[in-house]
Every structure is written in C-alpha cells, then in structure tokens.
C-alpha cells in the first residue's frame, strides 16, 4: 500500500469516452494490497473495460466476499454500487440482488479461497442458474491473507514459499464452470491486459453467467521459483488460444483481416466479439462453442503442462436465470404496490390453479 493519496492531476491528453469521462473517473480508493499484487492489475483492467464501454458507474454493482481479491472492489469504480458479503457467499447475495434488480451490471470479484473452498457450493449453483453476472476469480493459488497456505486451486506439485510441494490435486474452475452451464468461460492473466480487457468487455456484454478465471500472482507468497502461479511460470507456460477484440454494438465493423483468420460472435446486446485464432498447438480447429471439445482441449493442454488462456467456451444465446424463471421484465425494486400485492382475488385465482 502507499501512504499518500493518488494526486488528482491527470494526463492532459488522456482519452475521454462517450460520457466525457477519463479512465481516472473510474478509479476507486488507493489499494492497500501488497505492492505489485496481480489483483491491482485486474482492478485496473476492470476500470479500463468499463471506461472503454462508457458504462455509467451507477449502473454497476460490485459484489465480493472475503479475501485479498474481495477487497479489490474498493479500488475501482468509486461511484458504483457495492456489496461486500460473507466469505464465499457472494454468489448467493448476487443472486438475490439480481432478482431484485435485473437492470444492474453485476461484477463479482472473488478469489480462489472464496470460490473454490468456502464458497464452492454457492459458486456452482450460481453458475447452474446462469445468473446474469461477470464472475472474476483472482486466482493466485494461495491464501495470502493468512500468510500463504496452498489454496484449492494450487496445482499438484507446485512449491510453497518454504519449499514444500502441494500433494493435492487442484480444483479447475474453468472446467467446473463449463460443466455447470456457464455461457461464457475464459482464462486470463493479470499480467496481460491486452488479453484481459477485451475479455472483460465481452463478459460484461454477455447475457448470463460470464466466468473469468484470472491468474493473478501473489507477489508476497506465491511468486517464487517452483510456483505454478508466478509471473515467470505463467509467462513461460502461457498458451493463448485466441485473441479477442471487443467491438461495441454501435461501431461499424471494418474488415481489416483476411477471412478465416477470425470468427465473429454476436453477443446478446448486439456487440461483437471477434476471436483471432492463435497459432497454438491444437487451436486450429478449436471451436469455442463446442462444449465437449472445449473440455477435452482444456484437459489435454493442462496435461501438457500449459496454462491455456483466452476465451475457452461461449454459448451466446443460452437463456439466463430471468428468462428461465419468466420473471417480470421490470426490476422488482421498481414495481409498485399494486403489482407486488395484487390482492385477494389474484391469490384466489392462483390457489384455484393448484386444485
């Protein structure tokens, strides 16, 4: 952390978005995380994504649980809504919030402990329900707040800071999310904003559960030789499946690539996600909309010791929770008393339908 407040002076040529805001208007409080923490880069990527999409901060709700990762919503989008839930309960609280107000953009910030350990039961069901939210796991494979024990996502054999190898198999969150029905699943790396920012934009535009497993090295407890979540290890083993461009709905798509080099996927809100295939082994015929193939590819690359990143799976048109449950179009918190308490006669009609 730093002791001085960040000066408010900004670069005079800093780009402004359609709202007339610069990226500095999307900042939060100054981070109190360790200097160099990957989580701060994720916060910064969220700010950049929201700035580039010209999201009004008041349309965003930042949801989190407990952990280093869950502190980060304090460090971006000061003007947004926020809820810091009990450890591991962020998915459930977000489910409730989303039911009450479906108009907000929910950005859940969680960590490997908050999601893969204490919150795993909450997480898996939010995925299953295709809750319309962006769920980011800042994944560092270690419990930083409690001084560096291996977390559930630490790879088997990864060395802890004191040298002991992790004897357990890891929970692979992307596999889990795909299996449980998430419509948007990606893996990225806090040290690669060029990849992370467009993925975040597409995740925000996606209708349904958008999951990003973001490897975010813990500089204090898990950035040493032998760790599989260190900056160096991830950079050396990173296999990027594809590169993403996010093209907002209103922008005209100009083709400056040869056909076959990319695939355009139209997202729910009309924006387009352009996937550029990378030359990685096995990526040539990769179809991110084929769930079985995606799961197979992730397993194979993982077995080969690679850290597969990019957009892994996408099902752009799957119905989200509201569609499945046929909830009211208007958010509950905007319905009047007449709609919420329609009276005895309506109740009698409902009761009659069960007889």
């Amino acid at each position, binding site marked *: 952390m730093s002791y*001085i407040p960040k000066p408010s*002076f900004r670069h005079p040529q800093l780009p402004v978005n359609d709202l007339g805001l610069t990226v500095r208007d999307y900042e939060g409080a100054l981070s109190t995380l360790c*200097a*160099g923490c*990957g989580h701060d880069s994720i916060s910064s990527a969220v700010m950049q994504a929201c700035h580039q999409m010209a999201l009004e901060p008041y349309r965003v709700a930042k949801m989190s649980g407990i952990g280093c990762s869950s502190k980060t919503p304090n460090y971006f989008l000061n003007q947004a809504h926020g809820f810091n839930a009990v450890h591991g309960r962020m998915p459930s609280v977000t489910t409730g919030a989303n039911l009450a107000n479906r108009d907000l953009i929910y950005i859940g910030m969680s960590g490997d402990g908050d999601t893969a350990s204490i919150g795993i039961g909450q997480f898996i069901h939010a995925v299953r329900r295709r809750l319309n939210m962006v769920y980011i796991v800042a994944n560092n494979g270690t419990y930083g707040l409690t001084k560096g024990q291996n977390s559930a996502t630490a790879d088997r054999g990864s060395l802890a800071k004191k040298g002991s190898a992790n004897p357990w198999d890891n929970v692979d969150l992307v596999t889990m999310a795909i299996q449980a029905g998430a419509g948007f699943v990606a893996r990225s790396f806090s*040290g690669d*904003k060029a990849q992370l920012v467009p993925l975040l934009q597409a995740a925000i535009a996606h209708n349904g559960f958008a999951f990003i497993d973001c490897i975010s090295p813990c*500089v204090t407890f898990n950035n040493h030789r032998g760790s599989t979540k260190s900056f160096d290890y991830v950079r050396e083993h990173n296999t990027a499946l594809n590169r993403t461009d996010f093209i907002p709905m209103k922008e005209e798509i100009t083709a400056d690539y040869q056909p076959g080099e990319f695939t355009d996927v139209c997202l729910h809100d009309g924006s387009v996600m352009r996937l550029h295939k990378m030359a990685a082994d096995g990526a040539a015929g990769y179809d991110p909309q084929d769930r079985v193939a995606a799961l197979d590819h992730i397993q194979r690359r993982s077995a080969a010791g690679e850290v597969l990143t990019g957009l892994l799976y996408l099902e752009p048109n799957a119905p989200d929770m509201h569609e499945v449950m046929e909830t009211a179009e208007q958010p509950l918190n905007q319905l009047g008393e007449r709609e919420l308490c329609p009276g005895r006669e309506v109740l009698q009609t409902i009761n009659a339908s069960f007889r």
Partner: protein
Amino acid sequence: MKPTQTDSNFYHQVVDCQWACPAHTPVPEYIRLIASQRYTEAYMVNWESNVFPGILGRVCDRPCEPACRRGRIDEEPVAICRLKRVAADNRGDVIPLLPAVPEQKNGRKIALIGAGPASLTVARDLAPLGYEIEIFDREIKGGGMMWTQIPRFRLPARVLDEEVNYILDRGVKLHANYEVTSLKAMVEQGYDAVFVGTGAPRGRDLDIPGRTAAAQHIHIGIEWLASVAFEHVSRVGRRVIILGGGNTAMDCCRTSRRLGGESVKVVVRSGFDEMKASAWEKDDAVREDVEILNFLVPKAFLHTDGRLTGMRFEPVRAVYQGSKRSLVPTGEPPVEIACDEVIIAVGQENAFPWIEQDMGVTFDSWGMPVVDRVTFQSTHEQVFFGGDAAFGPENIITAVEHGHQAAISIHRYCQGLTLQERPPPGVTCVSQKIGMHEWRYDNDISEDPRYQVPHADKKIALLDQKMEVELGFDTAAGYAEAMRCLNCDVHTVFTEKACIECDACVDICPTHCISFVANTGEQQLRARLTAPAQNLQQPLLVSAPLATERVMVKDEDVCLHCGLCAERCPTGAWDMQKFLIKMAQAC
C-alpha cells in the same frame, strides 16, 4: 528505440526549471530547503549558482517558470522566482558562509570593464582563487543596469547594494566614476586578462518627423530610467506616451505613473500577446492604470513651436505568411494622441567606441564583437566578453552564466590550459528511499493553485518611486507555494533486470506516464503509449528489452515525481533518486 542513455544530461533535461535556467540553478533543491525553513541554506544554493538571489527573486526574467512541469498539468507553474525571494528575505547572516578570499594573491591581475552582473560574477568566481580583480565603471557605484535601468520600486537599493557588496567587499577593487576610453591601453597596463561586461548601453532612437524639433520632451528609455535612478529627473508630464513593448517600456510607464504621469499610454507596433515584455510586467503596468495600445506604428511627433503636443500613429494589422509576420496598414485614418512627454523604449544596442579597430578584437558586420559561445573569448586571446556586451541584450541571469563561463576561461587561460575543454559538472544521484513508503522528500504534492504575491496599496505605492510594490510571500505562503513544487530532480530510475512486468507502476501512475509496449521507432512509440506522448520537447525514457521482449517506456512530459511507481514496485525496479547537478565554476 534504443534504450535511453540515462546520463547526467538526460536527467538534467528532466528537471525543466534547472535546464531552462541559463545558470542551471538547482531549483527543486532550494525550494525543498525553503519548505523546511532552511532559508540561509536555500539562499546559499542560489548564491553559489546565480550570485544575486535577492535581486533575481524580484526582477529575474524567470525562464524557469514557463518551463516548469507544473504548468503542464496545472493552471500555473510554481512561483519559482518569488520563492527565491522568500529565501533571500528570511536568510540569516550569510557573510561567514561566503568563500574565503586568500590574503596571498596568485599574482594574476584581471580587469573587468563595467560593474554589472556579468563582471560581478567573474569577480566572485575569481577572487577566491587569489586573482587580483579590478572593476572599472563609469557610474558612481556597482550594479550596472540593475542599478540604472531597473526602477527602485521593483528593486530596492538596499537589496541591490547588499548583494553587490558581498562581492565588492571581498578584496575586489572598484574604480567608480571611471570611464574606460581605450581597451588597448587597458590591455597594455599589464592585466593578464580583460573582461568586457559593459552591457548594451545605447537606447535605440526613433528617427521620424518632429524628433529634433520636439527633442526637449522626448527621452530615450534607458537613459531616462538612469536619470531617475540618479535622481536627476523627478517629474514627468501629466500625459506620457511610452513607445515600445518590452520590459524597459513597462519600467518607463510605471515610473512615469510615480513621477506625476496621470495619463500614461504604452503604444506598441505589435499585438498585445507578441509584446516582448514578460506577461507579469504587463499585468503590473495595467494594474497601475497604464493603457496599452497595440498595432499602432509611430509616424510623427506633433509639436507647436518646439513644444511637444502629441504623436501620430498609423493603424496596422498583423498578416502572417507561415510563421513570418508583417504589419500591414489597415487603411484607417491615422491616430493622434495628445501628450506632454514621450519616452522611446524600442530596444537597446551595443556600442564599443572605446575599442580600437586595430587591437585584435574583431567585430562582425553588425558591430558586435566576435566571441566564442563556449569560452567567451574574443579574437584577442586576453580579452573576454560577457553579458549583453557579448551577444546583445538578454537578461541578468544570462549575464551571470556568461560571467561563470568567462571566469572558467580566464582561469584556464591563466594556467595555460586549453579553453575549449570545459570542466565537467559535479553530479550526485542518491536514492531517496528510507522505508517501505517513506522518502527523503515530500512526495505528497500540494494541489493548491499558485499563490499570489501581495502588492502594496496602489494609492500609496504610486506616490513614491522608491517604494517596493511587491511585498513578497510571507513564510506561510512561501511554504504553501514551495509545496507545489513537484521535485522533478528526484528521478524515477528504472532497473530492467529487477522488473517482473507486474504492471503495478502502470496502474498506479496518476498521469499515465508508464507503458510496457512492443518496441518500435520513436514516432510510433509515442503514439502507442497509454496516453500519447505528444510533447516532443520532452524525452522518453526507454528501457532495454524485458523478459517479454517488450520495453518499458516512460513519457517524462507530465510525470509528477510522486514516487507512487516506486512505492508500488514489488522488486525495487523503480527507485526515486535525487539527482543534483552542480555546474562547473572557476571556484
């Protein structure tokens, strides 16, 4: 781009104020001393570099301020000049701190002609080395143009005399009231070297109809100011016209306001913005009810029976062809302005009627001596020039720098060393880190707007031409203004091999100076950064290739030197290092 050579020149350039200062005074260093109320030390840092802190703290041309980085991120730059005055106003006894002048001389004798800032600087630099210094000046006391051309309401006699005497009291012999009429004779008197610092003593005249007939009420600006300084003139007509738009014109109009001028008009050929006068001097004149009239070319002095009645002007407008401007008559009828006196302040010229053509000092076609820009030596190896006498009218701080350089040359010349070889500057670069988040400088910069210097009540100030108008910052305002300084001399120093490319510095930087990008040519690189680096005057700091084959590029343009990059850096790849460069002097 190739990795930046982070040599002393690179770091010096980043300290905009110091780089812009002709004498390269370490500005942030003395501003920090002011902030910690160490006024005497702040004064001495100045004195060592610019010789006249109290004088310059009032009347410097302040090339540092337009250069100040603060001006690029905030409304206005740091009030550097006025902070210098805070140091001067609050200093303790500095005489014991001045360098000792040896009793035993080194046997070399140097003559300095003219007792202005250039000569005084030469004297100051050479006297402690044991040189016997003699200064010759035609006026009754030392100070040169600082005494004759700058009005006392801007520079009180007490302040001027004190700093001039710091030098003259140190075994330097001043021959006052001594007009040198022959340089040849001077050289033949056996001086080892002669330094000419006689300024630009001739005010330019305006040869238009009526000039001779109405001569009694028409004056040359700098001569008239000198007459006021020597109290030969104490009144001026009720209606005064000043011709010219430079700082001398501003001094003339404001002096006129104090000597009975009620309706004082400055009439200028060019537009208001192109006037040569410093913006603040124009402001001060306007504040004292001086009217500034632009785009009027003087055509004739109007008079009846030798009595000046007014002036005729031709209205013009500016026409640009590329960057070349010409003033074209508008065709409107001429403008006549009634007046009782006219002061011509349209420029100054050099004049060396006392330098013999055949003595070995070559003059160019403009009548200026041929002087080496580095050594300040003329074509006569024993004769050196400096100040306005060398290359035409500049300002005090430039004259001081000329003096320093000439003193180095004279010292080397007397030792039989080559003059082109210059002694290197003294450079120190010291990490400012003292703890996890603690630095040896205050990196929490103030976001206050520039503080305004209080002025004396105009009604009272206009009654007395010796009463100082600017009152200077008090210590509280001086502290607050000092805190606006960004400490640009505390540099962000980057070590490639420690960098893990975690982006922490990129994310924290308040002004988006830092980017990690694929390397390319400078032009594309400047466009590729997080915020475009459009200010081509400001260098890029480019690292060697990193592990990802990208390079770290820092645009120095709007860096706040807040040190947050170094605070957020987990590996110490960024460090904040204070870079002090002390330009070489003879002493």
